[in-house]
């Protein structure tokens, strides 16, 4: 599925030195914000938690890529970045709509937005696979579904890594949408709080002006950071993953460390916008 047919990179294991450096980046970002603009300390931590939720959530989403489109691998037939953007941004918009109703309701709305989008996507993917391509759902990585106990080997075609969207992958997709949607909404809400607080002190600005600018800036920053966290996770997965039962799922600690550092750096820049 790589660009020119080259084998995907991505070795196993954690690089301890690099991980420590990544954690230092997180701490440095938190430290700089604490010194320059203490009011944004909790929001920055919220942004980092949001990035962690996104990168952990994306690991659940069954990504099939090009092989899935040809019915040769299980999962949804597109790339990680596109799928995460679809599910997570649907959640972000759902949560942003409910931002006025308080943190927990907005986070719930974001989770439901992402979860519902992934549930519909997974359902329609299976409709296409089963009724239009005529292939049954069979996992390539496990012989028995961890939830339903269905067996797969008898349904798996020769020469393929499985096909269709098994039940465990469906559950993974919905869980991934819920987590990524919550993460995206959390980033948006935290940045919104920072900007609303900072812009309100500007001379000659109207309350409508504060609301408009804060929503626009928090929205575009949240979309940017969401894509950064999702693409870094995609690089961690290197291509396809079947869901929480896939051996690649065990790589999640790396992506969580990486995305928290990336979101800390991006969040720091986004917060410094109101400092200068």
């Amino acid at each position, binding site marked *: *599925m*790589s*660009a*020119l*047919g*080259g*084998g*995907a*990179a*991505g*070795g*196993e*294991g954690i*690089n301890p*030195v*690099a*991980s420590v*450096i*990544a954690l230092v*980046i997180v701490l440095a970002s938190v430290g700089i914000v604490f010194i320059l603009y203490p009011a944004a300390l909790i929001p920055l931590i919220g942004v980092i938690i949001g990035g962690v939720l996104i990168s952990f959530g994306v690991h659940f989403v069954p990504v099939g890529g090009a092989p899935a489109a040809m019915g040769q691998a299980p999962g949804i037939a597109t*790339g*990680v*970045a*596109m799928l995460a*953007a679809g599910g997570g941004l649907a959640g972000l918009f759902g949560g942003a709509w409910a931002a006025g109703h308080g943190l927990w309701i907005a986070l719930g709305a974001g989770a439901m937005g992402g979860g519902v989008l992934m549930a519909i996507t997974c359902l329609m993917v299976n409709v296409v696979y089963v009724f239009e391509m005529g292939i049954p759902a069979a996992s390539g990585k496990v012989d028995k579904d961890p939830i339903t106990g269905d067996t797969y080997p008898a349904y798996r075609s020769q020469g393929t890594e499985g096909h269709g969207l098994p039940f465990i992958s469906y559950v993974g997709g919905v869980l991934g949408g819920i987590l990524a949607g919550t993460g995206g909404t959390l980033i948006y809400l935290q940045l919104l709080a920072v900007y609303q607080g900072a812009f309100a002190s500007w001379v000659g600005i109207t309350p*409508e*002006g504060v609301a*408009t*600018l804060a929503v*626009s*800036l928090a*929205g*575009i*920053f949240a*979309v*940017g*950071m*969401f*894509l*950064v966290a999702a*693409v*870094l996770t995609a*690089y*961690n*997965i*290197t*291509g396809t993953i079947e869901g929480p039962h896939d051996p690649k799922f065990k790589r999640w600690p*790396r*992506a969580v*460390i*990486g995305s928290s*550092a*990336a979101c800390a*750096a*991006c969040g720091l*820049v*986004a917060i*410094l*916008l109101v400092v*200068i």
Partner: protein
Amino acid sequence: MAPKIEASAGGMEHGKMLAIGLIGALICIYLVYLNTLMSTQVFAFFGGLAAVIALWWGTDSIKKLCSYGLGTGVPSAGMIALGSGVVAMLFATKLAVISPLLVPIGCVVVAAILGAILGFISDKVLNMNIPVMTRMIAELTVVGSLTMLGFTAMVAGTFSFGSLILGSISVMGLAIPSYAASVIGGCVIATIFMLGAIAIQHPFNACLGPNESWDRTQMCALECGFLSMITVAIMSIVFLSFIAVVISFVVSIILWGWSYSELIKLSKRDAFAWLDVKPIREVGGEQ
């Protein structure tokens, strides 16, 4: 480490493209500042040219990065470029409170730092182990931020934060300041984000393959850039004077028409050359 597959032989050296892209884009963005100096808006189209020059360079960076197996497809590199680029670019526009001339150079510096962090994370923390990864992600972040800054300057005629957040609406002939009618307040920036993202993702994704050739991919990049520029010119109707919009629109249309006809010529040339099925050219690597 993934085996390296040479995308296309020949073409301009990457370092030279970097220099042309970076310096050309910066000069074009600074030319937009003539608007402020001469109290006019007709120089807005230089912003679009800056974005296209940056995209031309960024396409080669994507090609260098994606000639190693990323496993996630080409568009993901474009998404991370624009996702981090927009963060750096919006921060840089705020530097205008110190001096407007700091904005373009500040944009490059902030984007390079942010990109280097992201490149380090993907290369070392995520164990991708691709030799060019840190440099190329840093370059792509700079490209993404310059593209955003260029298109923003083209749509608004300026690149300082104060002007980007405050527009004006006309009520019975009176101009009333309005935050909602501005580039950032009206979230025109989100449309620019996607226009830039499509223009950087598409060229190499469309042209890659065994008979990929350097000049065709780069022409496709120019064509995508000018196509986005036409849309940006149409969006600038809201913010700029009539004459400035006409200049932007005519420049974009002429350049797009030229690049499109050149792209079709190059595509026909390569299609004609592709009479026999040949294996993928592989240079070096461990396979």
